[in-house]
C-alpha cells in the first residue's frame, strides 16, 4: 500500500507541470483551438520532442514504458492546462490498439511515426446506433481476395479529421451486437472510399463523421486475429477512461482553485463573497468532491497497475466524474456568477471540458448500469 510515485514519475510530472504553467497559457490555447485543426502542430512537435508521445509505449517500440501511473500524471496536467492537442485520440486510443495488436512490421509501418509525432491517428469505433455498447458494430469488413472491403459509418471520431492513420473496428462476422466477429484494421485516412466530415466539438476538440464506401484494405492491415477485436477495444477504452478521468481531476483542481480565488476578491454588498458562510460550505463540498474523486482515480490506477480486476474501480471513477464532478463544475460556474457563463473567462472552458468528459466512453448512467454488484 504505497501512494508515492517514483523518481522517474516525479520527473515526468514536473516536466509537464512546468510546461503547462510556463508555456501553455490560456490565450494561446484559445488561439490554437480556433484554428482549422483545433490545435497547434508546433505544440504537438514539442510534445514529441519532450518524449510525451512515447510515454505509453514499450521500449522495444521506441517508447518509455509508461503505465497507468504515467498516463495519469500526464493527463492530470493536461487537464490543468486544458490542452487541446490530440493526445487522447492519437496516442491513447489509436496508439493503444496498435501497441497491443500490431506485428513488428505493422508497428514499423504505422506506429513509429505516431510515436515520433510525424503522423496523427484516430480510433474510429463509435457508431450512430451503438451508443456506449462497444460490441454494437454495424460497419462491415467483408473478405475480398486476400483482403477486406470496409463499408459503413463511424461517428464522432475524435481527431478523425486531422488523422493520417485510422484504426477502425468492423464486423467480419456475426450479428450487430455479437461480442465475437469484431475485427480491427489500420488504414490510411486518405484511402479511396473514405469520406470525412470534420467539425469542432463543444469542448474545443475536433471530431469527424467518417463514411467508408467500399474501402479496400490488405490482409496486412488486419490487427490481431480476425473476429477477436473486442477484448482489445475494451482494454484500450479502459486506458482512455483513466486518461480522461485524470484530465477531469486536473480540471477539477483548477476550478476549485479559481473559484476560491474569485470568491476572495469578488466583492458584493461591501464584502468579499468568500465571507458568506453558505458559499463557504459549498466550496467545502467542492473541495471534498475533488479529494474523493482523486482518491477514486488513485484507486483505479493502482488497481489497473496491479492487474487486479479493474472493472469496478473504473466504473466507480467514471460514475464519480459524471455525477459529483458535474456538480463541482456547475458550482464553480454558479459561484462565478455572470462571469462564469462568458466565453472570455477560462472557467467556462474548463467547465465545458469537464462536463463533456461525462459523454465519453460511457456516461455515469451507463457505468451505473454496468457496475458489478457482486456480494
Amino acid at each position: 500500500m504505497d501512494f508515492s510515485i517514483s523518481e522517474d514519475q516525479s520527473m515526468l510530472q514536473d516536466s509537464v507541470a512546468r510546461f503547462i504553467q510556463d508555456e501553455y497559457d490560456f490565450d494561446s490555447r484559445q488561439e490554437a483551438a480556433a484554428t482549422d485543426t483545433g490545435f497547434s502542430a508546433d505544440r504537438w512537435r514539442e510534445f514529441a520532442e519532450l518524449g510525451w508521445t512515447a510515454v505509453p509505449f514499450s521500449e522495444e517500440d521506441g517508447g518509455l514504458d509508461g503505465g497507468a501511473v504515467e498516463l495519469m500524471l500526464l493527463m492530470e496536467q493536461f487537464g490543468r492546462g486544458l490542452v487541446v492537442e490530440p493526445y487522447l485520440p492519437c496516442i491513447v486510443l489509436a496508439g493503444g490498439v496498435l501497441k497491443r495488436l500490431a506485428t513488428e512490421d505493422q508497428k514499423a509501418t504505422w506506429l513509429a511515426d505516431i510515436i515520433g509525432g510525424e503522423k496523427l491517428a484516430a480510433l474510429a469505433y463509435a457508431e450512430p446506433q451503438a451508443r456506449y455498447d462497444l460490441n454494437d458494430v454495424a460497419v462491415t469488413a467483408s473478405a475480398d481476395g486476400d483482403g477486406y472491403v470496409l463499408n459503413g459509418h463511424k461517428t464522432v471520431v475524435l481527431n478523425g479529421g486531422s488523422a493520417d492513420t485510422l484504426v477502425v473496428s468492423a464486423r467480419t462476422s456475426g450479428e450487430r451486437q455479437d461480442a465475437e466477429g469484431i475485427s480491427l484494421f489500420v488504414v490510411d485516412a486518405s484511402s479511396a472510399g473514405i469520406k470525412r466530415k470534420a467539425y469542432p466539438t463543444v469542448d474545443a476538440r475536433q471530431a469527424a463523421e467518417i463514411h467508408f464506401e467500399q474501402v479496400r484494405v490488405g490482409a496486412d492491415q488486419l490487427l490481431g486475429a480476425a473476429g477477436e477485436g473486442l477484448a482489445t477495444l475494451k482494454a484500450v477504452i479502459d486506458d482512455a477512461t483513466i486518461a480522461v478521468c485524470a484530465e477531469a481531476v486536473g480540471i477539477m483542481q483548477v476550478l476549485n482553485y479559481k473559484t476560491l480565488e474569485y470568491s476572495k476578491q469578488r466583492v458584493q454588498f461591501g464584502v468579499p463573497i468568500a465571507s458568506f458562510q453558505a458559499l463557504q460550505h459549498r466550496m467545502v463540498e467542492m473541495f471534498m468532491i475533488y479529494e474523493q474523486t482523486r482518491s477514486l482515480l488513485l484507486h483505479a490506477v493502482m488497481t489497473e497497475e496491479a492487474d487486479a480486476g479493474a472493472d469496478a474501480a473504473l466504473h466507480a471513477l467514471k460514475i464519480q466524474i459524471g455525477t459529483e464532478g458535474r456538480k463541482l463544475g456547475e458550482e464553480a460556474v454558479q459561484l462565478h456568477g455572470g462571469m462564469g457563463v462568458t466565453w472570455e473567462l477560462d472557467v467556462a472552458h474548463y467547465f465545458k471540458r469537464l462536463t463533456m468528459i461525462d459523454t465519453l466512453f460511457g456516461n455515469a448512467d451507463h457505468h451505473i448500469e454496468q457496475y458489478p454488484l457482486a456480494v
Partner: protein
Amino acid sequence: MDLSFTPEEIAFRDEVRAFFADEYPADIREKVNRGIRLDKDDHVRWQKILAQHGYMGVNWPVEYGGTGWSPVQKYLFSIEMANANAPDVVPFGVNMVGPVIYSYGNEAQKQRFLPDILESNVWWCQGYSEPGAGSDLASLKTMAVRDGDHYVINGTKTWTTLGQHAEWIFLLARTNTDVARRQEGISFILADMSTPGITVRPIITIEGGHEVNEVHFEDARVPVENLVGEEGRGWTYGKVLLQHERTNIAGVARSKYRLARLKELASSSQHGAKPLMEQATFRGKLVATEVALKALEYTDLRTLAAVATGKAPGPESSILKIKGTEMQQRLDTLYMEAAGYYALPYVPDQFTLDAADDDVVVDSSEPTTALRYFNYRKASIYGGSNEIQKNIIAKHVLGL
C-alpha cells in the same frame, strides 16, 4: 377544491389552441424546433401576429390595450404556447418597461411609447446591471447629470440581452449622490439607442453565442422628458419591474413540454441495445423529475389562485424562481444524458434554415443540446441569483 376548468376557460383554451395551430408561421416553428436562433425579423413578425389577435399585453390592464385575462387564462395561454413550441415574447418592452410606463409615466409618455410596445414597432432593451455589480443592483455607478433640459449620462450597463437589436433602452442611473441609502438618488430614464455616445459591445457567452451586450454611455445627452416618474424614485419603479420580470418565472408550461418531448425521445431512441426509457438509471431520474415538475406546477397554480383572490404574490414567488430554474437545468442535464456523445458536435453552420444538406454533419434530433445546457447555466444566476432568492425567502418569509 376542484381540479377542473370552467366551460368558459375550456372554450378560451380551444380558441388559443386554434390560434397557434393556424397562425404560428411554419418557418419560425421549424427554426425553433431545430434550435436555430431567431433573428430580429422573426421575433417582430411573430409578435405582430400576436398583437393582431390581441394576445400581446397579457399582463396589461385593458385600458392600455391589455388582455385583462384572469390568472387561469394566462396559465392556459402559456400551456398552449409551450405546446406549440412558439417563442416567448421578447420581454423588455411589453413585460418590463411597458408596465413601468403605464404605472408611473406621464400621459405624453404613455401615448408616445405604449402603442409601439404593444405593436412591436420599437425594440427595447434593459440597462440595469453594471459590470462588477452582480446581484448587488443598488451599487450602480452610472451617472445622469442634469444639464439644462438634458441628462448627460456616463457609465456602463451589462448583460443587456438582445441589445444589439434595440432602438430604445430603459436604464437606472444615479441622479443624486448625496443620499442616505444607496437605493436613493436613482432615476428611471428612457434613451434612444441612436443617441450619440451610446455604443454596444457584444459579450460572447459560454456556448459561443451573441445574446448579451455591454452598453456604454459616454456623455450621452438624453432629454429630461425621458425621465419616468419622479427623479430619484427609480429604485422603487425598478422593483416593480423586477416583479413583472418574474411573471411566469416558474416556466412550468415550457418544462412540461420539454419533459414530454424528452420522454418521446427516450422511448424512441435508436441508441444502444434498448431504448433509454427502459434503462433503470435514466428512468429513475425521469420519475424524480416528473414528480418535481408536478410539485412545481401545483405550487405555481396555488400562487396563481392566490393572485386571483387578490393576494399579491409575495416573496414566496422566489420559490418559483429557484425551483423553476432548477427544473430547467435539470431537464437540460437529462437532455445531455440522453444525447450521449451526440452532445459533442459543435456545428453552428447547420443552424441556419437554408443550410445545405451537406452542412448537416450530424443528424441529431437535438443538435443544440449542449449549447442550451451551457447557456442556461445563466438561469440560476440572472434575474436575482438563486442565492439572492434564498436570502429573500430567509428574510421576508421565514423572518430570519
